[in-house]
Every structure is written in C-alpha cells, then in structure tokens.
C-alpha cells in the first residue's frame, strides 16, 4: 500500500445492522478498497465489503496432508529402513499399527496450519496499525462498528468521501492519519 499522509476516512456506527447496510451501499457506490470493523463476527459483513476469497481451508488441507504423509513416512522409514526390529513376527511394514500416529500428525499439522495460516493471511501479529490512531476506535472491541474507505481507493477524495459517508448517517466521521 502506497504511503500517504492520510490512511483513510472512517465512519462509526451504532449497530451491526447499520454497519452491514452501510458497507453494502459503500461497495455499491464504487468504493473498492474498504474495510469494516466489528466487536464480533457479523454475518454477511465480509461479503458486503466485497471479500470472497478465503484461503484458510486450502492451507489447512495442505497442512493436514503434509502432516499425515510425513507421519506415515517417518514410521515407515524408521521401522523398515533405519531400525527394523522383529516384534512377535509382525512384518516390518505393519501399517495398521502406524495409523494412530499418522492420524495424530494429520490433526497436529492441520491444526497448526489453521491457526498460523489464519494469522499469516490476516497479517497478524501487527501491534501498530493506522486505525488505532482514531481514539474512538477503542470501542471497536466493545460495542461500536466502523467502516473505513482507504485513501488508496481510486475514488477516494477527502471531501467527496466524507460527504458520501455522512449520507450513511453514521455516529461520527474521522480522518485516519497514516
């Protein structure tokens, strides 16, 4: 994102319903680089700001498959190649006995990829962010809902965008310094 003195224009709303409606209207008005902030997951909000692509499931699938394959490969290599031991005449490659560890490794890698994949895709941890410059934004984790139009949006203009956001009847509007 290009560094500009202003990060965007932010509007504050009272309810989740209000925010979703406002996000829909902003998106329909042709603003593409927008984001919304809420104190809990609001259904339909991601779609309202035009966010559809979610790669978390793919990351988890790949992580889980890698975990399962590496778990099985580890056991095969140890029990057949590196350290073959005859236990009660069982074959070296006694696959039924290897299922448990394969399963656990699938879950372990899948779970780790879910958490760290989600954080990485979200760009977290990121202790500093311009939106925190708005004092009212502290309520985004309590009971207020925010909508921002980024200054990188081609349609962004300080006066036009402010007028547009005022038309959505927000509780307050503030310019977010970068």
């Amino acid at each position: 994102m290009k560094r500009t003195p202003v990060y965007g224009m932010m509007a504050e709303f009272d309810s989740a319903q209000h925010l979703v409606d406002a996000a829909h209207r902003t998106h329909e008005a042709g603003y593409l680089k927008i984001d919304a902030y809420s104190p809990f997951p609001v259904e339909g909000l991601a779609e309202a700001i035009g966010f559809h692509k979610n790669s978390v499931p793919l990351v988890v699938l790949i992580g889980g498959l890698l975990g399962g394959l590496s778990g099985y490969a580890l056991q095969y290599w140890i029990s057949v190649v590196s350290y073959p031991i005859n236990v009660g005449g069982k074959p070296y490659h006694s696959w039924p006995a290897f299922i448990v560890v394969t399963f656990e490794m699938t879950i372990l890698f899948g779970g780790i990829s879910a958490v760290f994949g989600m954080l990485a895709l979200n760009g977290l941890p990121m202790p500093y962010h311009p939106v925190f410059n708005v004092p009212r934004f502290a309520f985004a984790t309590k009971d207020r809902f925010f909508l921002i139009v980024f200054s990188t949006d081609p349609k962004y203009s300080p006066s036009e965008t402010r007028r547009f956001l005022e038309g959505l009847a927000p509780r307050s509007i503030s310019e977010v310094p970068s």
Partner: protein
Amino acid sequence: MDEQRQPATIGDSAPVIEPGYTFGTVTDKISSIVLTRPTSNGWFLGFGIAFLLTMMMLFAVGYLFVRGVGIWGVTIPIGWGFAIVNFVWWIGIGHAGTLISAILLLLRQSWRNSINRFAEAMTLFAVSAAGLFPLIHVGRPWLAYWLFPYPNTMKVWPQFRSPLVWDVFAVSTYATISLLFWFIGLVPDLATLRDRSTNRAAQIIYGMLALGWRGSARHWHRYETAYLLLAGLATPLVLSVHTVVSFDFAVAIVPGWHTTIFPPYFVAGAIYSGFAMVLMLAIPIRKFYGLEDFITERHLQNSAKVMLATGLIVAYGYAIEGFMGWYSGNRYDAFLLWNRLHGPYAFWYWALLACNIFVPQVLWIRKLRTSPTALFLISGVILVGMWLERFIIVVVSLHRDFLTSSWGMYYPTRWDWMTFIGTIGMFLAAMFLFVRILPMISIFEMRTLLPEAEVKE
C-alpha cells in the same frame, strides 16, 4: 458462527443469557472481573492453599528425583500404580473442555459460549497435570525426550507398534491443539482488554498477546473459518486421545484389560468425569463472581444431562465387563470378575459402582438437576468414582494375574498421595490465576448471543 443466531431460548428451558444485556454491559461485566474488580480475600485464600499444595507436589517430585520410584508403592506385579491412575483420571477430565468447545460448536449448541473458555482452560491445566505423571513414572525423567523420534548417536528409534508410543503422540498433539484452540479463542477478547484497561503495563501485556487484533471483517471471516476447522480437527482428536489411552491397556493381554469395549467406554468415562469437573468449577465461579446471568440454570441442566447419558454408557461398560467374565468362558476373566466383587479391593469396587452408577441416577430428578448445591456434591461423587474406576482397572487387574505365585498387593505411600493431591493443587492454582488475569467467559461469543447481534440481509 451461524449457530449463535438461534434464539436464546428453546421451548420452556431457561435462557442461555438473561435478558436485558447489551454489547457494552456484557463486555463490562466480564472484563471488569479482570480489570477493575479488587482481588478478594477469598481469592488469596484459595490461591494460597492451592499454591501450598503445589509446593507439596514439587517437594514430593523433588524427593522422587533424588531417591527414585522406590519411594512409591509400585512394585512387581503392580508396576503402574498411582502414576497411571492419575494420568488417566486427569486426561479424562480434560476431555469435557474439548467436547464443549469443539463438538458442541459443530452441533450448534449456543449454550456452550458461556462455559467454553474456562472449560478449555480446565482442559489445558488437566492435561498438564496428566502429562506430569508418565514423565515422573519413567524413572529417569531427564531422559523423557527419548520417547520422541529424534536422530541420535545411539542410532535407536521408538517402537511404533507400541501403544505407549501412540500415547506420546496422542497426548502431545492434544496438549498442543488445546493450547492453540484456547489461545486463538482468546485473541479478540485480549484486544478488548487491551482497549479497556487503563493501566499501562496491562495495556502493553494484553496488547502484545492480542497480536494487534482490530476486528476487521476480513480477519473475522478467516478467523471463523480457522476456528471451525480447528473444531472439526479437535473433535476426532478428543475421541482418539482416550481411545489411545485405552489401547495402553487393551493391547496388553492382562485379564480385564484385553477387551474391545475399552475405547468407547474410556471416552464416555472421560466426558463423564470432565463434565463433573466443569460443574465443580462453574458452580462456585458463577456464585462468587455473580455470573448467574451468563452461566444459567440451562447450563447446569445440560451438563447434568450429559453426565447422566455418559454415566449410563459407563454403566453399560461395567455390565459388559461382567458379562464377558462369564460369557468368554475364560477362567482368568471369570476370576477377575470374582476378584473384583470379593477380592481384597472389593470394597473399592462396590464404592465405584455406588459413585458412578447408583448415586448419579438422582439426576433424573429435575429439581436436583437445577440445584447448584446438589449438582456440586454429585459431581464430587462422580469424580471420586471415576478415580476409583481407574484404580480398579490398573491395580485389580495387575495384582492377581495368571500365576498365583506372582500375586501381590498395592499400597500407595505418602509420596503417592502427596503427588496426587499436589497436582489437584497445581490445577486449582492455575485456575485461580486464569480467572484473575484472563476473561473466563468468551466476551465476543457472548455478544453474538444477544438479539441485537442479529443482521438481516
């Protein structure tokens, strides 16, 4: 999370959250326990006692490291003793936390939202207490890393056909996933605490832990997907963990262990004891912190029903064990049954049946299901019963096996008791710290239960 959109009341049952709350009041009520409420004398007293018990455990474990496992009551033929009894008991208790947070999430049970956070914390601390026992039982705990497959100069590797190695993987995966699940659920609430606290140090610490969470719609979207997938992964995991624990027994040929009923019966028993522990923690917490509006009669009732159901599965397990003693025609199995009912540990077997089967049947009475005091006491009885069950499984099967010449008796020593009671102290000390420094109820998930969270397209 769609399941939270369902109405707060279903039929005539008590609500999941009392009416009249808003996003702001829910946030303030839960976060004020951590941020503004003065720490009570009761908290210091409780934490102090738990802390002293923890010190007692460290003393017992320290002495164990100096002298070796000979200070315990374990001798051949009973090589497993308290360490394994306590390991199975603790890890079973942990299962209710994952059941509440993962399985009930998938089943869209919105009532879980007010108890999942501290149930997950309970899981974490119970698994820590459980993990301690195999480590100190191996005799040379400083070599416990030999359990893991790592390239070494001895050129040896673990034996993957052994259930004990499966257990290492199952329990360490379980601990890792439980920690991740709990932490990721905390992140949005840590951001709330960051923004609510006025103390600079608290702002910095909560701010670091919150990872810069700002509640962006994109973030929430990925967050919910990741959370749901994690729940989907944790569900088979939790069922597998106690299954693998039961394999530690069932794969051996010892009478009373070598049976196919063990996996489902262990899992049911785990959930049974876990819910008993959830209730034993939830009932005092909701009373002392005035959280009756969030942890309502509905939660108590539902937990009681889960205990009733899993208790009946456990009873079925006992019945099948008895039946197989007769039906198998195996004289060692038949003897085991006789020995349980009439042998030297018969009193404890009958006590186990009383605690796990007979007493919990009073939960059929609605009045007792909704009485916190009664539930607290019944949960205590169930926890004792489930501990006795593991004692009977471990000790009674081992003490008299195939040859009369190898029979013996098991007498726990004071070091066994000090270690066991000490882990209860450690568990409680961790719970005391948890309710003091972290939000014990998920604030953001409680917000989604409010009617104003509803959005129409």
